[in-house]
């Protein structure tokens, strides 16, 4: 039995990059939602949560409309990078990001909001800028919950199937992630390959979720 490990490495790469992107954007969005009052806050929160409840086909459709070669964003991408975005591994990163971001924002917001407000007030009262307050007080106190959220987002990114299939396709050796490869192998009757990949991806996910549980602050 010959197993192509490329889908696994691609999935890990896609999950790693999309989680990193989700962490940066998610922390910023979580900070805004946890600390600022503005018109449309609830709409923004709902829009961020939307990918958790919409069917993958709907999300894939949105991404295709937004990023296809004839869309303004697609054209912009092509002008800058010289090649289209859809049906590349980078589109798979976007697909995974769509799932990782809401998980991260939700968990990070809860983590930031769980920090005792009097500590943040104390920091401001002692002259700390909002930036210093975030890095020196809020983040260190919330870091375990945020790391747990990162682990969850990574695990979720690793397993995306529907959206990835629609925007990145199923090109072996180029855009085929492990979830797509399992489906492909099963359809082709390569049950041993499918089973091996299923076991490997389950083990990786189990490992990451165990890590996430360990990172979550102990309940008292």
């Amino acid at each position, binding site marked *: 039995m010959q197993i192509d490990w490329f889908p696994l490495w691609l999935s890990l790469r896609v999950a790693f990059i999309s989680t990193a992107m989700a962490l940066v954007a998610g922390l910023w969005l979580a900070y805004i939602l946890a600390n600022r009052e503005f018109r449309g806050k609830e709409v923004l929160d709902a829009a961020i949560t939307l990918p958790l409840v919409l069917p993958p086909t709907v999300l894939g459709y949105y991404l295709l409309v937004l990023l296809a070669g004839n869309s303004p964003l697609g054209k912009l991408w092509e002008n800058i990078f010289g090649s289209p975005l859809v049906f590349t591994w980078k589109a798979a990163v976007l697909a995974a990001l769509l799932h990782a971001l809401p998980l991260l924002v939700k968990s990070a917001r809860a983590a930031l909001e769980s920090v*005792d407000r009097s500590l943040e*007030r*104390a*920091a401001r*009262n*002692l002259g*700390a800028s909002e930036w210093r307050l975030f890095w020196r007080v809020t983040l260190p*106190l919330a870091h375990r919950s945020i790391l747990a959220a990162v682990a969850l987002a990574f695990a979720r990114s690793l397993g995306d199937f529907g959206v990835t299939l629609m925007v990145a396709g199923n090109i072996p050796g180029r855009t085929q992630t492990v979830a797509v490869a399992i489906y492909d192998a099963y359809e082709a009757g390569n049950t041993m390959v499918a089973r091996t990949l299923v076991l490997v991806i389950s083990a990786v996910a189990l490992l990451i979720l165990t890590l996430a549980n360990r990172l979550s602050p102990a309940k008292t």
Partner: protein
Amino acid sequence: MISARLRKTYPARPDSASFSLDLEFQATAGVTVLFGPSGSGKTLTLDLIAGFVRPDDGRILLDDDILFDQTARVNLAPQARNCGYVFQNYALFPHMTLRQNLEFAAERRPRLERHRRVNEMLEKFRLVDAAGRRPHEVSGGQRQRCCIARALIGAPKLLLFDEPAQGLDAPLRAEFYEVLRQVRADFKTPTLLVTHSLDECFELGEEMMVVREGRLVQSGTPAAILEQPANVDVARLLGIFNLLPAEIRALDPGRNTSKVQMGEYELDGPYLPGHLKGDRVTVCVRPESLQALERNGKPGANQIPAQLERTVQKPQGMRLEFAGGIAVDLSRNDYDRVRDTKDWVIEFPRESLRVL
């Protein structure tokens, strides 16, 4: 000196009634105590001054600095207000050592000066041995001293204390009072202290402001407020008076006398300026000013018969609680002399009789 005019309204919500704060006051050097019941707006006042909450209207002046002025559209950020705040729960950063907590507060100073200042404060507040430990690893007293040192390290123009002795046991409270007296002597920073303990007002306050339902109802020295509460509400807030309904029957400014009818008995008192004959008033008299005696026949002058309901042990003596809501405090010796009495009279000494 701080001079503040503060207005803030919170509309009613499903889980809370509406609340409106409307205060105007000035506080100079020394400790000014904001006294009032829970929910009267004391902590909100501190938060408005510190910049954590924006007033709807008003003006806050700290020496020559305008911290907030609605008309001029000035609203300094909390970072720029230079007010040291000692939080009720201390709010020490739990992931930092005591030294790091102080360093965080001194970070805007040049490095060498910061180091010197932190060491100075650690020594002054007896924290050198605990400097490397985190807040949860040190005693309550050390946490408290660290919080005060941290608030003072930036040389604030005003210190704000939010119920600092709330929930402390007696030795810790005594230690805190001692530290605060030391701070007052060494730093001379004007201080606003929120409390709902009358003992604390007398222990620490040079000036006292009584706040009720978001309004300033009386201000002055604690002794002056205790001597003459502005009205029945203030007397009730102070919680140490017998408040009994009565009617003024006679007033004689020439002889400095008055007669007050309480139930079916008439009491003699000093002249009561600002009142008229026939006024319905409230007699305000402290339990320790009254005498509880054994009745011998008809009650004497300024005596009314009373039915004892129960006795309560107090640290300083005994409290006798009579029907009609009259309490009398006696020393243990005085109580021992009358403890077997069955038939009581309460004597209202003429000079202690005040009405509101």
